């Protein structure tokens, strides 16, 4: 087997935009315009698992707000 697989070594971070849509992004890279850190860092799998736990309402924030009475 290959000794080093760079993919698995890459650290990721959990990010979100103003619509409270979550994604992952390489930990060392600057965020894209309009995205901010959620705070979690780790492997790709760890970040995705975290998102699975916290992203309960997948509606964009603007939609959620518009629907609130």
């Amino acid at each position: 087997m290959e000794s080093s697989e760079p993919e698995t070594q890459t650290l990721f971070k959990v990010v979100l935009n103003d619509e409270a849509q979550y994604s992952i992004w390489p930990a060392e890279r600057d965020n894209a315009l309009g995205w901010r850190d959620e705070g979690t860092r780790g492997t790709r799998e760890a970040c995705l698992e975290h998102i699975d736990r916290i992203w309960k309402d997948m509606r964009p924030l603007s939609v959620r707000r518009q629907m609130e009475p």
Partner: protein
Amino acid sequence: MNATRENESTEVRGLLNAWNPPTPAYGVPMFVHREFAEWARKQPDAIAIISQEETVSFAELDVRSNQLARYLQGLGAGPEIAVALCFERSVDFIVGLLGIAKSGGASVLLDPSYPPHRLTTMLKEAGARLLVTRESTARALPLHEAVVIAVDRDRSAIAGQSDQPVSDGVDAGNLACIFFTSGSTGIPKAVMWQYTRNVEAQVVQDKQRARPFTAKAEDRHLFKASVGFTLVSLEVQTPLRTGGTVVIIPPGQEQDPRFLVEQMRLHNIPSIALVPTLLQLILEEPQLVQCHSLKEIFTFGEKLSPRLCQEAFARTNAQLTMVYGLTEAPSATSWTALDALSLRPAAVGFVNPSRRVYVLDADLQPLPQGEIGEIFVGGNISRGYAGRPAFTAERFLPDPFSPVPGARMYRSGDHGRFAADGMLEFVGREDDQVKIRGFRVEIAEIESALAEHPQVRTAVVIAHDTGGDGPILAAYYDVRDATAPHPEEVELVRHLRARLPSFMVPARVARLEAFPLNRNGKLDRAAISLPESVVPRSAAPSVAPRSPVEISLCQIWQEILARSLIGIHDDFFDLGGHSIHAARITARARREFNIDVSVTELFNHPTIAALATQIERAGSSTSSPPLPPLIRTSSLHPDIPAITSTMQRSAVKENERTIAQGHPSDTGMFHYNIKGNLDVSALGQALREILRRHHILRTVYHKEGKQILQIVQPVESFQMEIIETGTPIEIHRRHASAYFDLLNDLPVRATLLRRTETEHNLIISLHHIAFDHVTSSSFLRELWTFYGAFAKGQPSPLPEPQLQYADYAAWEASWLRRGTERYDTLAAYWLNQLGDAPPSPEGMLAAEVPIEHPSMEDCIFSIDLTAETTSALRRFAREEKATVFMVLLTAVEAVFQLDGGFDDIALTTFVDSRTRPELTGTFGCFVRGVTLRTRINPNLSFSQILQRTRTTCLDAFTHLDLPSDKIGDTLRRANRPPLQIRAAAQILEATEAPHLPPYLEIERINFGPPFRLGTTDFFLQFTDDGTCLSGKLYSGTGRLCPRRLRKFTEAVTQMLKKALRAPGENLAALAPLAADLSCAGEKGTEGG
């Protein structure tokens, strides 16, 4: 916010901007239902939907979807609420699509042909709260939590809602609909589309980037996509938004190239989207050259080969455009218009100018032009996968190149590059996703479905590239316990079929002792080759073909399914057959056997043995022995009297009897009122041309001893009578009461009454010896076609007919005599059927005292079915694989049973006996009375009686070659009583209307019944105008009681309504019907 835009270097910006617009991706909300409602206001009477059953106007569709929307809102539908919609392609589907959108909800599109288990998974995955479907579909589903709205069961509640527009409450960012894609975990993924979509290009004008999907309000669009497929948005939503018409291709016929081409021609379709495999089949259809309206063909989903591309240019003038799109990023990603030389094998088009498309490396950095990386799509992409935050986050990433804050891009998994001219090229995928006939399939999903089988340990699925019709899926497995009996391969195929949509079921399933591994100890997929030896088979041993038809079919199947040694009982689906194969097989069968076999027939008879029986039935009326070929013999000796058919001989004798009794001859009439500048000489020329073409119309009869022969007269013996005095009604009466001496008179007479320069009446009579329903409608079509041509000084535009009626008579004489095997087989069948026929059932309606001269209203009674009953009836017929006539006949039988106690019912019907394709277009009387006998009892359900009736009809129709005279002869010889079935029922199929010259005002006038009423006891004739069924019961002899006849028609209507609601109930449970037809009731009422 501390986020910064990265990679501001000019180099990177150069890379991105070369193919992407400098402005933000241009998205607009697309509220199809609102645009539709706007059209419904602008053109309420325009046709929105054409289906086999009905046509629906914009206004009607608007009303029906408003009512459904209100009903759904009452059950909680609204913005962000997922509402599942599960129908085959149908009007109900489109009403549902609009109704859900108008309620504010998001439609979840489910294909009812999917396994019920999978549908339930999809409902759950999409989080659907409501499910709009039919009761039968809902009942088949395993437990789920959605509230079911069954449009058939809840019809009156829905129709009771206000038809006024509703407020949808949605905004551009709300959920619009949900489409599924194959998911590698074994669970399909629910892709959430929002209303905002990328517009499809409007910037670039040059040919290569021509704007696709231009639609006009007068356009019709074929709806042939599978209902869960994103192509629905093109085929249904486009016409709804642009004021056009959706033409629904009936389920099962979407892959029948001949049917599609026919529909394309019939509806002047301007544009169509086809996967390359279907495009190939369409290009092979000879009728395609007649599709003059076709301007654009879009192709997508699979690689387009240069050969296919060139064939397309050779066979059609339509513009061919290739489109590349992704479910996760609604609306096209890229496209290109092709010309004969521009196809590059990997090209998928230029980027949609309103989209952002990047080719990135593993670190998400842009790659220079020409380098291969992963394709990412930005702009207005979908919201993600419903209920799957992790999958969504993994695939929908921050878009670091977009000027819009917070924008996302979708990671497609497709690998590609940009060519020097900006063309996007697709080079493959890293994962196991493949395209099968345009559908996206995750190999892993099939593997996990196969691994669910208790005996399977490991499952591997491979898409083998065969170079032909796209990849073939093959599944390989090993077993848990090698000592236990192995599962039959066919059992595994069925296991998969119960879990996956048909396009995902592998064509081959094979067991491997051990899986080949590579040096790293991983599965070596490349080392597994497509096995021929291990094919799934039916449990029965393979049986070799027996008859010539079976042998030919076997060759066709083996070639098209790419297998050797197919047995005649092997199941088409078990052999990995799918609809494209079916289309190819039926096309070949049509060519080789010259008979009409449809894809649906193959689906209903999915083995060689069963299909061969069908073909033999269609080609000749019983399976053995074959009849002599039907060929042209009549022109060999035009002046010599020729032999007549049984029908002609009996018509001549009957005519003599009729005249001797002082009755007029048995004729049919056409009466036209024509306003405008009629070209009288062109009209006469047109009539003469029809007589020239069709000898039967200028045939007289000659008696020689006991023989009756036929002689064709010269065309000049016919003259159109032109008169200037008299009223139309007088001329009409003269025709209606005319005597035809068939020994001297031609069977056609025409009178033109010239009332003024610009006002004429044309009256044509035809004697029944020369015409039937089919002939008369062909006669009128030819008349106006020739008139149109001759009035403009053009030559005849129609090809010469292949066969004359005399050829048929000669052919009939060559075998229709006692002692030939065929004759004796047919005679034995009819003797068995009718040797002990019951009394004619209409006797139960007899009047106490016969009526001397019944008035018209005591002779004709109407049965009018509503559009709703009609479409329920059609649907029921389709589900039961029966014809509409069979359902109607069943209702009549059921009334005779319930109200008259008959359990053995014989009725006559009249059918066209042109069963041989050579006879299409031959003029003459081919209509034949056939007695249908069915045994029923009140403990059977309507469905069961229908199945018996269906068998009766199909059997009778395959024994049509013995005319009723010969059946009578057979009964007489066997010392059986003659047939005295006076009750008859028939359905007249709608025929193609003539093309009337537009510069004349032509009106067809009907006076009275279309046949002689005075000798008719009980004749129930249904007509089908394409929308509603209506019937007339004729009874002119005065033998039957008008009151009972009227009640009988009411009872038939009641029976249909009740039975269609409860087809599984015992007949007895459907009583009482509206009418009491018993004698007691009759007397009681009269006495009271």
